[in-house]
């Protein structure tokens, strides 16, 4: 069988397995184990474990459970409620102000956490019900929460960039810094979109009544206190890491501790909250880790087939593409593959194929990491797979239907694609900050 035929059989087999609704890790794991046995004979029975063992060496993945834990503590502890209150009062008198405030809230949450789970939980349980109560358009605000929380993996810290850093062998510090400006830019674009949309269709976002926001200016200033804790957490976690005081995994432990201390100080931490948080942390971490385990097996089989070389010869020799066309092909292929494959698995399987190609074409791997992350954000939000979609369905108030969720993301995905194009055309958006920080001395 030719390489293409094997790849098609494997992908097709996996798609069928996934459609049966079996657990994603089992579907991927079984197809790869079966492919290994079929291709290499019984000697390959050890391949699934040996591939899985690679994850043992990926110790930066320690950041995953620690960030998940931190996210739950932050959303349970009431720190997020205070933050929401702050944004609510300061932005409430603008048209669409609560939606703008929610984006602001999401940026702050993203700066404290490396996943979109935390932002999603906070957005769906705090911001969404508040905005629904004030008769904001439910489709628009569902999109706001999904798009806003997806910033979690672009604004540092970011677990996706940790994963990319391991696969591409790039320093995580640089990658995280490279995410800062694109993350803020994307938040800005979301806000511009909300402002324009609300100007054109004012019924989508009724203005909050004057009385409700009426309070002495000193009271308003006091609300800003809510911003202190996130700032401290950001400083102790990401700040100390960038300054080289703590290592990457240590910084996530510092963040987890800081969030716990903040929750204790607020007096909201009890046995039930802790138990619930660490139980969910175990569940989500195991789910992601087992998907990665299985995807590593799939990747190992693909790698054994010489997929990188095959891809290179397909793009460059056979199709005679220019480097830029190859780049566009890669981004497009992510979107196509995202329809057949789980997004987390896709990261693990596809990045090792594309990164060597990117480097050999002379592109900057740090910059590509940002493109890769934004593509992930889009993939996580778009059906049929999409972890954010899945979470949104589980967490959103009942009046928000599945159709609302699917429709809501469309404008925001377009904004994200626009941001992606901007960064492709102007790589300095991503590279300016890491160059500034690391090339000083």
């Amino acid at each position, binding site marked *: 069988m030719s390489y293409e035929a094997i790849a098609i059989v494997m992908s097709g087999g996996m798609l069928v*397995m*996934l*459609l*049966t*609704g*079996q*657990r*994603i*890790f*089992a*579907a991927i*794991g*079984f197809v790869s*184990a*079966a492919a290994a*046995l079929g291709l290499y004979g019984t000697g390959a*029975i*050890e*391949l*699934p*474990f*040996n591939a*899985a*063992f690679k*994850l*043992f060496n990926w*110790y930066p*993945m*320690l950041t995953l*459970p*620690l960030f998940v*834990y931190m996210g739950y503590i932050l959303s349970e502890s009431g720190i997020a409620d205070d933050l929401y209150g702050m944004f609510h009062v300061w932005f409430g008198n603008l048209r669409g102000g609560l939606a703008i405030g929610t984006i602001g809230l999401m940026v702050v949450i993203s700066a404290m956490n490396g996943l979109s789970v935390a932002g999603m939980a906070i957005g769906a349980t705090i911001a969404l019900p508040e905005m629904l109560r004030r008769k904001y358009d439910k489709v628009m605000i569902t999109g706001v929460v999904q798009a806003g929380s997806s910033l979690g993996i672009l604004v540092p810290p970011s677990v996706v960039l940790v994963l990319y850093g391991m696969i591409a062998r790039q320093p995580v510090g640089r990658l995280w810094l490279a995410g800062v400006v694109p993350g803020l830019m994307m938040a800005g674009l979301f806000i511009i979109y909300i402002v324009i949309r609300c100007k054109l269709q004012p019924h989508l976002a009724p203005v909050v009544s004057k009385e409700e926001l009426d309070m002495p200016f000193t009271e308003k200033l006091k609300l800003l206190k809510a911003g202190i804790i996130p700032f401290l957490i950001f400083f102790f976690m990401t700040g100390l890491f960038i300054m080289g*005081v*703590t*290592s990457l*995994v*240590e910084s*996530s*432990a*510092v963040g*987890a*501790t800081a969030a716990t201390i903040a929750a204790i100080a607020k007096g909201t931490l009890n046995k039930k909250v802790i138990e619930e948080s*660490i*139980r969910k*942390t*175990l*569940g*989500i*971490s*195991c*789910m992601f*880790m*087992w998907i990665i385990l*299985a995807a590593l097996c799939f990747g190992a089989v693909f790698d054994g087939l010489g997929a990188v070389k095959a891809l290179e010869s397909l793009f460059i020799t056979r199709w005679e593409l220019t480097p830029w066309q190859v780049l566009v092909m890669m981004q497009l292929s992510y979107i196509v593959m995202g329809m057949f494959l*789980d997004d987390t698995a896709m990261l693990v399987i596809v990045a090792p194929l594309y990164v060597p190609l990117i480097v050999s074409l002379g592109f900057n791997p740090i910059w590509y990491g940002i493109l890769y992350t934004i593509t992930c954000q889009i993939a996580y939000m778009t*059906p*049929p*797979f999409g*972890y954010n979609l*899945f979470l949104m369905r589980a967490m959103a108030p009942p009046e928000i239907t599945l159709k609302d969720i699917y429709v809501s993301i469309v404008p925001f995905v377009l904004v994200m694609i626009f941001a992606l194009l901007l960064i492709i055309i102007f790589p300095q958006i991503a590279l300016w900050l890491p160059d500034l920080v690391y090339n000083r001395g």
Partner: protein
Amino acid sequence: MPKFVVYYVKYVDYLSTKLGRATMYSIFIMIGVLLLGAITRNILNMPLSWTIEMAQFLLTGYYIVGGAYSMQLGDHVRMDLVYDLFSEKNKAKIDVCTNIFLVLYLIALLIGSISSTMYAIEYGERKFSQWNPSMIPIKLIMVAGIFLMLLQAVSTFFKDLAKARGITIS
């Protein structure tokens, strides 16, 4: 369902739950070990060489041993585009068939982990680092965790089978 199946499900679920709940708390040990490393290096100026590796061992135990409990709780996502269209009973029927693939994958993992552990024991494999710890304990933990996951998968299979026939066990 036959009596031994009911007992099997009961005891395996009990074991996964207990081990899973114990594993759940190890996240605090991970945090503690990492903080210890950061503090001794930066404040006491006494760097410890083993903290990150220790956390790495703990993490591996965390997701391997915790896997069975997370499966019991139904935390592993599925692609439910088609799956969700079926009734609970029909979902169970589909699961009865496809759980076989889950079991087969876990058997392959188990065989690989046993052979890797045998190698580690035979050659006294150590992790190549300053701390230079033995790899035998973590590999034994991985074998045990994967075996537990396999037991849990079989228990899940029985539960789905019962559900497909309209009865509940456990």
